[in-house]
């Protein structure tokens, strides 16, 4: 789960992270009044969207006066912001953050990530503040310092000194930098983050260390113990089918193709998509019903797939381990009873209680094709859906 910049800054403040004063504007009519609260001459106007890359796409603008800031703010609210991460249609800007300007002496890059390779949290720092870290990694990899943090020892002073040395932090600002780095790590662990990126982290003309931008990602598996963060969850930029699926604990990702997939297990669901693609078809979605699916969950999964009107065929591929095939079969029968299914369905059941599942489907009188293996099922659904007929 992600939060907006203004929320991330609010969350980081109690940990001792320096941020600039700012106000959130959600209505053009309140822009002038809100802008009164900002005391600097220069005001930065920032679109609050989850997608990255807004800076280069017109989502961050500098105003030289309060009046100009209000004008920019009014233009920005409601605009479609298209960044490299939003796709062609872009996202609607519903919130704009007005922030104080500051005199920047130096810009740095700083992030904390879950480091899979070293099974720890790692701190990544670079002097190339403001640049995308992927670009720096490509062009100038030695400019990046990575420090692995042992969770039992936490971030040590000597590690912080390494960062200060690598970034060439001036003497006067070092104390402030030490405090900031420790604050970031403390915040990262305490709030169950999986990503925290400050780009840029700046040194102001009066030697203060300030987080000019803040991006935070949180571990979905830990939201149960982070109620304050969970309450910030906002799904308005997400695909509605993904939102609906999440409500039922189904892992669903919308894709561009036309063949719906219902599978148990994430790996098998990916392999099923790949097999459909390999047969010349295109999957409409990734859907993992999970290992402990009930009849109701399977029914809901089918409903979600069928609510996508471009879907012209469905492949149900189940290898029962913890999941029992008869549960899937009962779910299919129930979903078919609820609504008319007009697209061809191919079902492949294997593993735990596969025979019982097959019997349920056979006795249901439903018009469902079966397949003995993943690859044969994929071939069959691609063929049947392209013919456009029913089974």
């Amino acid at each position: 789960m992600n939060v907006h910049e203004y929320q991330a800054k609010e969350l980081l403040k109690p940990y001792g992270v320096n941020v600039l004063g700012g106000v959130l504007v959600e209505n053009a009519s309140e822009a002038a009044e809100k802008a009164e609260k900002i005391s600097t001459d220069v005001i930065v106007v920032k679109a609050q969207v989850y997608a990255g890359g807004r800076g280069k796409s017109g989502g961050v603008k500098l105003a030289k006066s309060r009046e100009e800031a209000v004008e920019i703010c009014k233009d920005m609210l409601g605009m479609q912001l298209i960044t490299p991460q939003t796709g062609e249609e872009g996202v609607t800007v519903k919130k704009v953050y007005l922030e104080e300007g500051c005199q920047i002496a130096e810009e740095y890059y700083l992030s904390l990530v879950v480091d899979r390779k070293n099974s720890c949290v790692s701190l990544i720092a670079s002097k190339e503040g403001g640049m995308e870290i992927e670009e720096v990694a490509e062009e100038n990899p030695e400019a990046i310092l990575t420090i692995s943090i042992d969770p039992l020892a936490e971030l040590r002073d000597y590690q912080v000194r390494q960062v200060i040395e690598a970034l060439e932090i001036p003497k006067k600002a070092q104390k402030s930098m030490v405090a900031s780095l420790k604050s970031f790590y403390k915040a990262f662990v305490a709030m169950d983050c999986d990503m925290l990126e400050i780009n840029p982290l700046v040194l102001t003309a009066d030697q203060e260390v300030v987080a000019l931008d803040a991006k935070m990602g949180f571990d979905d598996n830990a939201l149960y113990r982070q109620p304050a963060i969970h309450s910030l969850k906002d799904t308005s930029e997400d695909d509605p089918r993904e939102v609906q699926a999440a409500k039922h604990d189904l892992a669903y990702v919308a894709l561009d193709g036309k063949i719906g997939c219902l599978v148990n297990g994430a790996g098998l669901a990916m392999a099923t998509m790949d097999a459909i693609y390999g047969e010349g078809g295109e999957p409409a979605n990734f859907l993992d019903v999970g290992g402990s699916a009930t009849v109701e969950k399977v029914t809901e999964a089918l409903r979600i797939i069928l609510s996508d009107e471009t879907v012209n065929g469905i492949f149900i591929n189940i290898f029962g381990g913890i999941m029992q095939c008869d549960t899937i079969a009962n779910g299919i029968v129930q979903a078919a009873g609820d609504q008319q299914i007009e697209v061809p369905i191919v079902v492949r059941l294997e593993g735990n209680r596969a025979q019982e599942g097959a019997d349920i489907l056979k006795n249901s009188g439903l018009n469902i094709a079966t397949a003995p293996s993943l690859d044969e099922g994929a071939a069959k659904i691609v063929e049947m859906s392209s013919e456009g007929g029913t089974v």
Partner: protein
Amino acid sequence: MSIWVNEETKVLVQGITGSAARLHTRQMLDYGTKIVGGVTPGKDGEEVEGVPVYGSVQKAVDATDADASVIYVPAPFAADAIIEAADAGINLIVCITEHIPVQDMITVHHYLKSRPVRLIGPNCPGIITPDNCKIGIMPGHIHQSGRIGVVSRSGTLTYEAVHALTTSGHGQSTAVGIGGDPISGTSFVDVLESFERDENTDAVIMIGEIGGDAEETAARWAQENMTKPIIGFIGGITAPPGKRMGHAGAIVSGSGGTAETKIAEMESCGIHVARRISEIVPLLNKAL
């Protein structure tokens, strides 16, 4: 004959009084696994499927001499269950539980590092040495004893591969599911190393998926250290970047972790990579 588990392995079930654990305790017993006890705090003295329940792992170990444990406890308590098992002297811990917070797993990983214990998982189907010992949730009947090792990040894909092997007459020495989380106790390299040493394993099926670079690391290690052939498979060729595909660890971030880069690295290190599940057995036959 196998790696890590065999007919001698004495297994505890942590969280045995939960419904999934009960179901799988029954299935493991039916398969012939030596389930010697269960653990649920506060349920000391109860019985599940004829198996005695203890209030702590230490009590269970004292009473049964168990050397392995399988964990079915809910995610908020799973990290604690792993550490409790390690402290009680269990040397093989299999954690089935999914959705464990990543910070919990980071702490667990570092806690276990200095101790003589192996953790398999979390978020995995478990480990099976066919006909001898099944620890986890995999359907036992699809397996057959033999000489092919299997290691995988995905549960159901492991079943696919095992099923393809068995129906074509290739039995398995051991099949290990290492799990789909970003932080796991056992890596591909750990398993490959053991299969390389195991004199009853002739070849290995290695099943990966998008996200991270565990497959690439394993491929480079294998090039230097493996004499036995490896047949690979990677799920998620069609996965879009930036989207988490079910497993917490299955995400293409930036330009890293794609199926293409994994397949390319594996092939350049001498691994035969199947593009479809049905190609695994033909590639294996060719390599043997």
